[in-house]
């Protein structure tokens, strides 16, 4: 059986190999290709048809304009993970039922697996990478650590994004409102109680 490890004997990690492969593919398609930008939102006589090959997709992610070549059938999740190497957003069910891929679109939570990246053009995408940093955690992230609100940690980025949106909209949610706020995020370890406590803790501190 093949070992599926990030540290292969050749010293090429799986993640870096994928990254490299992606870059090689992009070089092939960098030729003159249509770009999906705000401009194509305007009504023209002929409808724009893009794909199935790569096009240039320019998005505002965590406040920064980032452009990359990708097929227009790429979901926002795959664009983030595989084209921008932003792997904080997790792919689990890929069907919009688990919430591990939650990001903010104009401040609202969405499942990034269930929308096309080109539909995020002209809008603000915020991923977990745009919410605090390891050196400078948000109050909510600190509360996750303090209240032991994670076990395996795979649902955590999605939970943090959903809870951040909740506290932005409602700084003092009650327990029912917190449950509603994370109703679209599944934790297979069952750490919900600690997550609720973390949100309450962050809420008391007035942070997010």
């Amino acid at each position: 059986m093949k070992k599926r490890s990030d540290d292969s004997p050749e010293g090429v990690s799986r993640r870096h190999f994928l990254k490299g492969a992606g870059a090689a593919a992009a070089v092939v398609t960098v030729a003159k290709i249509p770009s999906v930008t705000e401009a194509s939102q305007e009504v023209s006589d002929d409808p724009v048809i893009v794909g199935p090959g790569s096009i240039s997709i320019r998005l505002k992610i965590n406040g920064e304009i980032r452009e990359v070549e990708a097929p227009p059938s790429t979901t926002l999740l795959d664009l983030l993970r595989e084209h921008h190497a932003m792997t904080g957003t997790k792919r689990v069910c890929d069907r919009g039922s688990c919430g591990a891929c939650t990001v903010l679109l104009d401040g609202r939570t969405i499942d990034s697996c269930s929308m096309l990246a080109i539909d995020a053009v002209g809008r603000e995408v915020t991923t977990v990478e745009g919410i605090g940093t390891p050196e400078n955690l948000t109050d909510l992230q600190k509360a996750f650590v303090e209240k032991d609100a994670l076990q395996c940690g795979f649902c955590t980025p999605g939970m943090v994004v959903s809870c951040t949106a909740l506290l932005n909209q409602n700084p003092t949610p009650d327990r029912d409102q917190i449950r509603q706020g994370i109703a679209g995020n599944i934790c297979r370890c069952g750490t919900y109680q600690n997550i609720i406590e973390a949100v309450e803790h962050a809420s008391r501190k007035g942070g997010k």
Partner: protein
Amino acid sequence: MKPFKVALPGSIEQASSLQQSFDVPFIAGGTDLLARIKEYITTPEMVVDLKRIGGLGEITSTDHGVRIGALVTMNDVATNLQVREGFPALAETIGNAATPQIRNMATIGGNICQKPRCWYLRHEGYTCAKNGGSGCWAREGENEFHAIFGNQVCAMTQPSNVAPVLVAYGASIEIQSNAESLEKREVPADQFFLTPEQDPTREVALKPGEIVTAVLLPAKNRTEKWSYTEAREKQSFDWAQASVTVLYQRGGRRGDHRVVLGAVSPAPLRRADLEQIIAAGDLDADCIQALQKKIGEGANPLSQNGYKVPMLRGLMAKAIRKLNGEKKEG
């Protein structure tokens, strides 16, 4: 997922022409279509993205009522003041559907056009009366969540939780296309959702090239009391096993009351016989008993879904208690 082209029309006419020329699906919120493409249930060469068409994203008040543009997200419908005040059962239903994330993406137009959740239809290995084959696998197979009424041709249930509520309120669906013969038309919700007897291959009354452009809620709304009750296995990201919508209209015994059952038949099931029971007396224990006795009439449960009959009886009782303002769950 098989890569596909994306058409980005700027008008309804363009979108309609593209869909007809290439026989490809529309995409709005994408939450249903992308899942079906990932499962290889449908493998379109192209999708026609409706997101860039103007005029479909607003909720407006007109003399005829409230017009909800087809691209308005479910969350924006659920939190809209006009909807909450005028059509609270709709706000309640839509505000509890799916998950917060899905409600921020999925549109009202897409919600009423979503494909059935039948696991045979959503398995690439099966064909049936709905997709080019014949018969219904669920009738003799796994049918726990399937229809108990009107299930002879196809045992699908209408997956939209909102559908029965729209029928109850007498809403209409505004439809447009580019063809001169079709133009703009308004279809009452109770005619928009089709039964398999009408056409097993379509769940809604859209012809090729036609696009849902709005949901229209009537200005004439005489609802005095309302209730929407639903049973599902999970509180989140699940579809109803059965639902009961009751609108009690002003005028008491002369009122035009509405009772619509959801998730127990291929299309929302309006029940005039139950409406008459509500009009005939007070909303008391006798009324509940009479409704419970009647509600299973005409049901033809399959091997695994007989539980939906007593479930409906329970929901019916709960619905009347809710109308009376009783908080106790029944």
